[in-house]
């Protein structure tokens, strides 16, 4: 009885201290995690709001792009500045352009380009734009004025080409009774191509819309004359060598 009274008295004496300890424990054990949770949720709310804003902006940008127009632009860009080595298009364009200017086209020599260099560049990470070129040479023969017209036209056709070197020589045709002057042009040309980006990036990454300057640049694509490329579609050989 005495000890019970004694413990009651101790409790009464230490009541204040016990309550103070309880409040500290309550703050640390209960309120602490609740506050941390609120802080985390508020932080994710901010992040989610930012993400929602970005995605909304992206959706608005994408919805504003005219599908038909962008499709046309991609096709034109691919014709003028292709993603792969434009060998077939080049041959077709050159033969048609020479045909249009009444010239004889031939003597094509292609330089396939060094794959090692590309690989080395990729390893070093020095290629920022991944722009590649294909150098080749060819001959066109015919009237001098036609050759000049051909040369002028050459840099205005798709795919994009740059005349690197030119040599003109005059040849006479001894088979003809009337001496006809045949001018032969030895032309070295570089054509350019660039592989497309490998990835699109994350879904939340913004879409860069075209500036006015870039729009004007794209409009210049239309100034490049495109010749239709005829690619053989027939079966050209055995498909299975073991049959």
């Amino acid at each position, binding site marked *: 009885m005495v000890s019970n009274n004694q413990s009651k008295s101790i409790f009464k004496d230490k009541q204040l201290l016990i309550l103070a300890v309880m409040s500290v424990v309550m703050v640390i054990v209960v309120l602490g995690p609740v506050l941390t949770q609120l802080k985390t949720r508020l932080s994710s709310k901010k992040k989610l709001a930012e993400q929602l804003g970005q995605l909304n902006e992206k959706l608005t940008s994408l919805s504003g792009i005219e599908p038909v127009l962008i499709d046309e632009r991609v096709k034109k860009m691919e014709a003028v500045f292709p993603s792969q080595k434009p060998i077939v298009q080049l041959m077709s364009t050159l033969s048609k352009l020479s045909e249009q200017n009444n010239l004889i086209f031939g003597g094509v020599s292609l330089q396939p380009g060094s794959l090692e260099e590309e690989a080395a560049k990729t390893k070093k990470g020095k290629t920022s734009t991944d722009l590649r070129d294909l150098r080749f040479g060819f001959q066109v023969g015919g009237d001098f004025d036609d050759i000049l017209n051909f040369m*002028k036209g050459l840099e205005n056709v798709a795919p994009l080409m740059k005349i690197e070197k*030119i040599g*003109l020589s005059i040849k006479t045709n001894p088979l003809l009774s009337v001496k006809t002057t045949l001018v032969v042009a030895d032309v070295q040309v570089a054509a350019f191509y660039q592989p497309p980006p490998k990835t*699109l990036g994350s879904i939340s990454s913004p879409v860069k819309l075209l500036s006015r300057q870039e729009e004007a640049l794209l409009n210049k694509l239309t100034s490049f004359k495109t010749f239709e490329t005829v690619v053989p579609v027939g079966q050209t050989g055995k498909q299975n060598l073991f049959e």
Partner: protein
Amino acid sequence: MEIDLFGQQVKKLARKQKAKRMALQLLIFLLLILAIAMIAISGTSLLVAKENQKTEDKIGLIKTKIDDLREIESKQVYLNSKLNSFESLLITHEKHQGVAEAVFNLIPSGTTLKGFDVSEDGVITLAGSVPNWEVLSQLLANVRGNKSGLMQIKEAKVKKIVFSQIGSDISFDISLVLSVNSAVNG
């Protein structure tokens, strides 16, 4: 006469008890406030969680819509990736075109051109041969009179003219420096 033997001690004790009581009340009050704050914080936290869930749902919906427009996005990314290189190519292309056009306009019919090289400092070396004096004088007149087109001749130097034999070709070596025609470019 009343004698207060513990008057001072009783007063002291009473003050101490009063202070204790007040401290206790204050502590209880604080605990109450803490409890209310905890309830409020938990409630807010729950509300924020609910809002976050709603935003996540919205994000999911928008992502689906963006996924549907993935084809357009890929085309836009393709155009953007190509435009940087294309712009620089087009600038050099236009200059080069101007140079080529200027050179072609110089050459009179009958000229055999061995080649034309453009050095890094923009000097064009034209080397070739002409069948007779008339064509050569026409070529030189063209060099002198070149004022139109995107590029015009800023400086011309005839480095070599060789008359080897009577009736044979006359070979020449001319170096030219072209500049952008400000009259054409505005």
